[in-house]
């Protein structure tokens, strides 16, 4: 079964808007939560990651919010740009680097 649940499946945002993608997990052995970005025809690439000992991490326009008690985390993309249009995957990993991915969110940012 899917160990990391991601929503929405697709998202359309206007340029300058905020994109929000949510993920939830059950396995408490997960202790590393990265987000990967995938452009068409390319492999996924790490965008930003968070450890469960912090509730938020920000890198430029990208922010991860993490709620350990709820076992949920989300990606916020501020001032979304057309170049951000891609598929985003949340993931969760154990210490053995057994990384499980969410189902992906296809983000389209309209100019």
């Amino acid at each position: 079964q899917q160990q990391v649940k991601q929503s929405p499946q697709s998202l359309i945002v206007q340029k300058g808007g905020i994109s929000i993608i949510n993920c939830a997990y059950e396995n408490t052995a997960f202790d590393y939560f990265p987000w990967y970005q995938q452009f068409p025809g390319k492999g996924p690439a790490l965008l930003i990651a968070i450890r469960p000992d912090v509730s938020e991490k920000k890198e430029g326009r990208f922010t991860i919010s993490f709620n350990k008690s709820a076992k949920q985390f989300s990606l916020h993309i501020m001032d979304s740009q057309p170049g951000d249009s891609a598929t985003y995957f949340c993931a969760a990993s154990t210490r053995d680097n057994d990384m499980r991915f969410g189902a992906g969110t296809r983000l389209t940012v309209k100019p």
Partner: protein
Amino acid sequence: DTAVSQTPKYLVTQMGNDKSIKCEQNLGHDTMYWYKQDSKKFLKIMFSYNNKELIINETVPNRFSPKSPDKAHLNLHINSLELGDSAVYFCASSQGGGRNTIYFGEGSWLTVV
């Protein structure tokens, strides 16, 4: 220089054939993976090797056999190909376990006809 390279990038083959996908990483990592991405973009881990030793072996048909001749290479051999094997296969690598970035190749697009 490509960090994780896999060949071929595109492969069209008939049902029942046997094919291989090769992967090499020049990052000096000790862990390599194969992931399968289906038409709905879902990424699923198939195998993970650490220092040539199989660590993760998901529920994958035994028609799929990974082989790691050394730390820098992890090849995937598929026997008796079926239509449902059509997907993009990604090779990836990371250094060690735990909280480490996984670096993906650009994918091998397999189409079985």
